[in-house]
């Protein structure tokens, strides 16, 4: 069985040090996201804070392995992507003062002209098939590497997601990892109230994926998922990451109303002081 280039952590890897580093980056990213919410146009705060730890861990893997790519399919969490790219060293500019500003590419949904952004996403459902195509290309060219697609749970209501899952499983794109940011919210309220998505792990398994669940705010669990051995010709992996909308800011944590937030500078300063 061939495997992707990343195997178990080398004996010398100090997992505790990596986890500490991821934790520190996530905190820095959350502060940037709060800054973006305090900009003149606000941002998709709740879903950005819920997906932050996932992005930080995935980008850490990408930083160790240049063949690995991360596609944020839930593009409305662009603030989190920009922040995570910045604190991970991919994006040199601080995105917060430029977010949604005229003349800059830090739009409310990711723009592929930015470093680290492969595809324009935000029209939900497209990021997964883009990533599947990229993963197929990696296989054809014999390039080892992981392709990570990060989706929202509300996004799973899009038919295109399941079209792509069908194809990815049929093609056994084992280098494709789909992470679902399971924060339970969507634009108009709770996923459970609007169009529930029960038995997610079983759904992915039924499609032919391997599937697992993690705490989407636990850097140790996330780090382990992204560095685990994968058979590139085996089934793709689905990771249901349980998260909290608005994670880290007590005022909005778990609240469906945190989907899009605009705050003033004073509130931002307070939130940044206490953010976790």
């Amino acid at each position, binding site marked *: 069985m061939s495997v992707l280039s990343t195997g178990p952590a080398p004996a010398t890897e100090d997992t505790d040090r990596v986890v500490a580093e991821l934790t520190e980056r996530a905190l820095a990213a959350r502060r940037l996201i709060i800054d973006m919410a305090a900009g003149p146009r606000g941002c998709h705060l709740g879903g950005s804070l819920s997906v932050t730890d996932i992005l930080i861990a995935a980008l850490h893997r990408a930083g160790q392995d240049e063949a690995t790519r991360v596609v944020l399919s839930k593009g409305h969490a662009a603030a989190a992507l920009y922040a995570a790219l910045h604190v991970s060293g991919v994006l040199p500019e601080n995105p917060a003062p430029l977010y949604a500003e005229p003349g800059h590419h830090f739009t409310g949904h990711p723009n*592929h002209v930015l470093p680290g952004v*492969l*595809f*324009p996403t935000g*029209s939900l*459902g*497209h990021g997964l*098939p*883009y*990533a*599947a*195509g*990229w*993963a*197929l*290309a*990696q296989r*054809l*060219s014999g390039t080892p590497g992981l392709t990570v697609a990060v989706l929202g749970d509300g996004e799973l209501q899009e038919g*295109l997601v399941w*079209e*792509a899952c*069908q*194809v990815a499983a*049929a*093609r056994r794109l084992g280098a494709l990892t789909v992470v679902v940011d399971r924060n339970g919210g969507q634009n108009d309220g709770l996923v459970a109230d609007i169009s529930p998505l029960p038995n997610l792990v079983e759904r992915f398994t039924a499609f032919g994926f391997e599937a697992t669940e993690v705490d989407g705010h636990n850097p140790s669990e996330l780090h382990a998922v992204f560095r685990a051995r994968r058979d590139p010709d085996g089934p793709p992996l689905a990771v249901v990451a349980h998260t909290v909308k608005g994670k880290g800011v007590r005022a909005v944590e778990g609240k469906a109303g945190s989907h899009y937030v605009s705050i003033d500078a004073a509130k931002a300063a307070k939130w940044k002081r206490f953010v976790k």
Partner: protein
Amino acid sequence: MTLTRLPADRAEHPEPAASAEPASLEAAAAEAAAAVPEAAVLAGRDAYRAELTRLARTDPRILCLEADLGGRSHPFAEEHPDRFFNLGIAEGAMIDMAAGLAMAGYRPFVSTFAPFAALRAAESLKLGLGYLGAGVSVVAPYAGVSGAWFGTTHHCLEDLAVVGSIPGVTIAAPYGEAEMRAVIRSAAASGRPHYIRTGRNATPVGLHPAADAAVPVVRWDALGGAAGAEAEVCLVSVGEVGTELCLAARAMRPELAHAHLCYLDQEHLATAAAELAERHSRFLVVEEHRPVGGVAAGLALLMPRCTVIGANAGSTWPSGGGDHEHVLAELGLDLAAVLDAADRAARH
């Protein structure tokens, strides 16, 4: 007008049940031979498959993707099985995946019927081929009403309007095997996004001289008469049906001029308009498409000092069965309509 076609659609749909005993192999072969023109040419989609298969022998970047409408025996699959992917009935995912493949350095060609490519997957075209600029070529048979008796779900009279509004996508509607092959070669070499429209199984022989090299922006029809700059009206033909109709009209009225356009995106139309307006001032555009968003509408905006009218598929929903010609007649797109419109253009 009679479009030449192969006797059976070999790929995606069974033929209607025969009422008589199954024909013998010999009889079936004879029937097929009789239906194929002497100098047998390939239908648009067969020419596409043959040319792409040939090109892939020397270009390892070329990939061929289908969404379950490529037929059971596809030449590309037979010759390059490791680069052929039937992704199943998943048009949107196929075009998005092709964008991913293109961004990784491959040259994917995807094919599915025009209504599914241009309408169902319209957003994927906008984002992947347009905004992202991924070098995906979409080859779309069943354009217009060439799906005939399969019905309105399988017709596509809106694709030029939809895809034509997406900047950065080269649009082509080749006429004949040679032109299709030339378009495929150009698309593969350029690595730029393409939408290539063709019919079902019609096998037009093509215009002379054949497009064995690059396809010109405007192909002036040198046959059928001495019409030149003095012609009162210049026919502008688009696609297989439009070109067949223009050839038929010109055979009856040699005084008409005729310019054939293969490339139909805004950029090519702007270049074509400049060349057309240098020679003529009255134009009749013949196209198997709705009037809104069609080539006539585009050229009219580009040639404000000229008269540009259209003979097209109109705005009704064809709901009857029959062959391609029957459905075209139901839409009022036939030779009589073209000649009528030419008279109107001349009086303008």
